[in-house]
């Protein structure tokens, strides 16, 4: 296990050394996408320089090399999530793609009278595909509401689950609030009424360890790019029997057993859900990203990120007119806030011009903004390569912005 030292770790990420507008970059937009360590960048280069070939289909040497690397990556991800079988790991383009894959399948399986249960906290990509599945199938989409702290309101938890509930989709961690949801409880409730449950892990795996078997979750999805890997890579974990039940999403090469003009039989898992030439370099480099991340003691990283969050929260609370949005008891290192009398766009623009990269707006969670009666927040999201000094710079920059906007 590698000892965590932030100054050493920062050197692994070449982009962190750059400047914007002549100022050192402070990258606090890790919730949107994480920066990539040099090993990941090198891995992608190496593939195109030395190993490029299509996979799963050639007799020649390079095709076999590529196939082996890609399948090795699948095994690494299996280990990372502690999945039982490697064929339970499906490569996708990202979280959005993974959710659409599952929701499409459900749009074929749901019937009028069936219920889909989501929450008010979801990213649009865990709302819209389910609304579409309901529209196509005649099923009804219900949701668990929020409370003022930005947690799921579970006071009436049993009222949301019944024998019509067929599938539940909940985010593990809220991207706009940072809230960590008690998914164990929701998984148990879902299973009690015979429903399957999908957990959106887009904002969780970069912060803490997840064990899909211990959780007994049916589907778990995430994006490679938020986990220090390449964009255009993602994973759908599905329990074997849950994936077997699900009809295929896209048709094409690789996903078939036999194609006749009279009809087609589908390939087995995982290929049934992997039509067409995938992002091979990305899939291989995702293994490199996970190996890199997993070389640390994740609890050590988590502890450090929590220190960053606590420090940032205590510093920002010293400023006037700031309201933190999302004050859950259990949070990852996400600090979302609004400023009295100042628009998030103005705050974000003035921070940007001082080298501070944050995200502003509704963060693809409009229902969350509606719940809090705001049209957006400023969100600083920290990774383990961020520092307290950067938080100081951010607070200084924020003070200056507030003076100008005041």
């Amino acid at each position: 296990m590698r000892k965590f030292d932030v100054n050493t770790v920062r050197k692994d990420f070449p982009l962190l050394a750059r400047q914007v507008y002549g100022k050192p970059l402070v990258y606090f937009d890790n919730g949107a996408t994480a920066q990539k360590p040099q090993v990941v960048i090198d891995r992608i280069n190496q593939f195109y320089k030395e190993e490029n070939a299509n996979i799963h289909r050639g007799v020649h040497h390079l095709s076999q090399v590529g196939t082996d690397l890609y399948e090795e990556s699948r095994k690494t991800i299996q280990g990372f999530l502690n999945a039982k079988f490697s064929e339970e790991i499906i490569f996708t383009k990202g979280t959005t793609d993974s959710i659409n894959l599952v929701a499409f399948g459900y749009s074929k399986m749901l019937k009028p009278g069936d219920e889909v249960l989501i929450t008010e906290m979801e990213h649009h990509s865990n709302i819209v595909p389910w609304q579409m599945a309901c529209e196509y199938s005649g099923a009804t989409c219900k949701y668990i509401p929020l409370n003022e702290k930005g947690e799921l309101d579970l006071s009436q938890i049993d009222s949301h689950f019944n024998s019509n509930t067929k599938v539940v989709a909940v985010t593990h961690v809220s991207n706009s609030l940072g809230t960590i949801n008690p998914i164990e409880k929701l998984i148990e409730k879902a299973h009690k009424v015979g429903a399957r449950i999908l957990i959106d892990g887009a904002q969780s795996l970069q912060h803490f360890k997840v064990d899909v078997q211990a959780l007994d979750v049916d589907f778990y999805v995430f994006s490679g790019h938020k986990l220090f890997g390449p964009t255009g890579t993602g994973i759908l974990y599905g329990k074997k029997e849950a994936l077997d039940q699900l009809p295929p999403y896209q048709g094409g090469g690789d996903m078939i057993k036999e194609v006749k003009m009279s009809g087609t039989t589908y390939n087995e898992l995982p290929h049934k859900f992997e039509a067409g030439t995938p992002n091979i370099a990305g899939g291989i480099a995702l293994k490199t990203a996970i190996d890199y991340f997993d070389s640390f003691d994740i609890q050590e990283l988590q502890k450090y990120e929590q220190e960053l969050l606590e420090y940032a929260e205590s510093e920002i609370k010293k400023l006037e007119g700031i309201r933190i949005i999302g004050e859950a008891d259990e949070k990852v290192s996400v600090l979302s806030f609004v400023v009295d009398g100042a628009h998030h766009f103005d705050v974000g623009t003035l921070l940007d011009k001082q080298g501070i990269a944050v995200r502003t707006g509704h963060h693809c969670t409009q229902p969350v903004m509606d719940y809090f009666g705001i049209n957006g927040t400023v969100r600083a999201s920290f990774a383990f390569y961020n520092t307290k000094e950067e938080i100081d710079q951010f607070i200084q920059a924020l003070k200056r912005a507030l003076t100008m906007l005041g």
Partner: protein
Amino acid sequence: MKIEEIENEIIDEFGVYDDWMDKYEYIIELGKDLDLIQEANKTDDKLIKGCQSRVWLDSEMKDGVLKFYADSDAIITKGIISLLLRVFSGQKPEDIVTADLDFIDKIGLQEHLSPTRANGLLSMVKQIKLLALQNVEK
């Protein structure tokens, strides 16, 4: 003044700033001089929706020239609108239709008018041009 002359004047004004924050300080000041649209006129048909900030735009044809009134919920957006209206408001429709907006690039604010910014400003420019087109030869 002609559109081009006003644009050159703005370019000169911005020439003195080499620090981004000073430039934005000035933009924020400009926002305070904006010819505001009347509150009562802030109806949905005057609203130009952007992803980040909202913009309202109203216009009036008077003595052969088009006058514009606007507002935004974001101060920086307001400042940039104020620059745009300084150029366009009070001009003949046919001059507005043919005017180019190179000056925005020259003062370093092109990011605010990029189609991917979706802050309502580009849509506002399109709306200004459209209103001008509708008023040509009337």
